[in-house]
């Protein structure tokens, strides 16, 4: 059972790294980016190409995935997304669904539709026993990496000037602008960073989640669930929500395989009914 908990935590932390960019984007600009998963997919495939074909070591591939995806995110943000900020939520949904469809088809065309696997160094394969709990080496890497990332994020948010600008902008963009904060600039940077994180998550997660062109659509629901349950006004909300979802999903699929998938959908609907602003959000001013 503890193994399941461990696996669930690994899954949850991975989900967090994948989804936190989406959460901040939504909280900051009230922008629904259903194409977020596409950046994760991009990161996964970039790492695949670099590691499998160009021979780059796995641990070098991860930061490269982050940087390249962040750059792609920045590019898309400045050229495409910026035109859609002021539009209604319906327009944003349609726009980002369109982007997802395009990216799924494009990747299918370029890379083929079969599921692919990144060559993971043998040091990370297999599991070992610790106090009777089966510890998967790869999952341990995920937990450590994502844990460090989370701590880093929290430090940036609370310790740096950029972090306080970001928090101010999330809280009330209009007032933040009035204080002279360049909210659009903050957003562009955050969007790029969030996309980069998604890309890193995609690269890290390929081993566990599977990587194929339908990735953005398959996991869209999970990202959205994390954001809705966790709320958008903090980092801790989505973090706790991701852990909850990760553990619930793994446990659900193990103990009740026939209904495993329903567990998280039901959690989502129940949470949305009781607290539309998310389980962990503050009482929203919005």
């Amino acid at each position: 059972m503890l193994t399941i908990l461990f696996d669930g935590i690994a899954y949850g932390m991975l989900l967090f790294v994948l989804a936190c960019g989406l959460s901040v984007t939504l909280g900051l600009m009230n922008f629904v980016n259903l194409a977020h998963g596409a950046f994760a997919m991009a990161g996964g495939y970039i790492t695949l190409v670099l590691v499998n074909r160009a021979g780059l070591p796995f641990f070098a591939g991860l930061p490269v995935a982050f940087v390249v995806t962040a750059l792609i995110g920045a590019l898309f943000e400045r050229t495409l997304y910026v035109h859609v900020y002021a539009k209604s939520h319906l327009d944003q949904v349609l726009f980002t669904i369109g982007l997802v469809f395009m990216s799924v088809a494009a990747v299918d065309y370029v890379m083929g539709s079969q599921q692919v696997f990144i060559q993971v160094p043998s040091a990370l394969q297999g599991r070992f026993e610790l106090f009777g709990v089966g510890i998967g080496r790869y999952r341990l890497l995920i937990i450590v990496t994502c844990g460090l990332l989370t701590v880093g994020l929290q430090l940036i948010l609370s310790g740096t000037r950029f972090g306080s600008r970001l928090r101010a902008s999330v809280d009330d963009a209009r007032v933040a602008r009035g204080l002279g904060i360049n909210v659009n600039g903050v957003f562009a940077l955050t969007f790029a960073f969030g996309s980069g994180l998604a890309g890193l998550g995609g690269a890290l997660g390929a081993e566990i989640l599977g990587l194929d062109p339908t990735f953005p659509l398959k996991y869209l629901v999970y990202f959205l669930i994390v954001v809705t349950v966790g709320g958008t006004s903090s980092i801790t909300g989505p973090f706790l929500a991701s852990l909850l979802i990760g553990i619930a999903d793994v446990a659900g699929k193990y103990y009740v395989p026939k209904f495993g998938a329903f567990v998280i959908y039901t959690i989502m609907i129940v949470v949305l009914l009781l607290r539309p602003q998310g389980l962990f959000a503050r009482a929203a001013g919005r």
Partner: protein
Amino acid sequence: MPSPVVAEVARRLARRARWQPLEYLFWLAALASVFLLRDRHLILTEIAWLGLFALSLDLILGYAGVISLGHAAFFGFGSYAAALLAKYGIVNEPVLALVVSGLAAAVLGFATSFLVLRGSDLTRLMVTLGVALIMREVANQIPDVTGGADGLQGVVIAPVLGLFPFDIFGHVSYVYCLAVLFVLFLLARRIVYSPFGLSLRAVKGNPLRAASVGISVNARLVAVYTLAAFYAGVAGGLLAQTTAFVSLDVLSFERSADLLLVLIIGGTGYLYGGPIGAVVFKLMQDWIANLTPQYWQFWIGLVLVLIVLVGRDRISLITGGLRLVVERIARRWNAGAVPPPYPPPLAGEGREGVRGEGR
């Protein structure tokens, strides 16, 4: 005896609901296609039920302002219901089975309607998506009933009304679907021009104000959501009956997303957006599929992106402008007084802005 002012106002209001020349044109063209486009009846059948499906979404999105990313839940539920009714001989006659399927979907709609009453647009997106995904997962998990990923096999549909067996050319299918579409369209048209329909537009425009003049916003939303679920269920039933096959993709996210596109192309809030969008969408799909069968999703995505960038209101201005031109020509033909066309509300804007969010 009503005063002349009252009589005049009543006359003017009644004129709004009167059939416009373009409407006659549309349905005459549809009727003509039965005889003149006999070799295209298969794709026309698809256009017919897709148009009905999009019409059902228009009822909640265009008229009540509820965004749904999971309308396929009702479509798929109706589809499976119709197929199962036929397969196990529970209800053999197709029209009756269609009504039962629609009612089943309506029950599902009613049961889930309370989920879309509260919350922002994003909440509604999530919740409707969640319901559709749950339905799909349910269907996936009971392959003994639904056929699972392979689809439901062995469905045989009896002749319509006991008289008209389905044929492989789609002749009976098309007339059947077109007739159902027309009847349900008439009903919908009556409803949107009624006081109920007007109150829906009020709820969409300003739910706070609507409640403040005594309208039970929740009751109206539940009613129209249930009605839309009925229509979607019937559309799904038509798919099942005309193809004698159902599979999991009737409940998929892609189905819901494509539906949004269909309705957006046609325009929301004037009832014809669904059928017109279905025509354009299917023709586009047909054309693209001939060019690149495997990657047509890319071009659909591109169309979506472009439509949003160009602006949906600009597009509906174009279609509205075209409509005005045709009206003017028609007016010059009959010298009599034809009132100006009922201005359609700008294509489905989101419901924010009521509490001053202004975005």
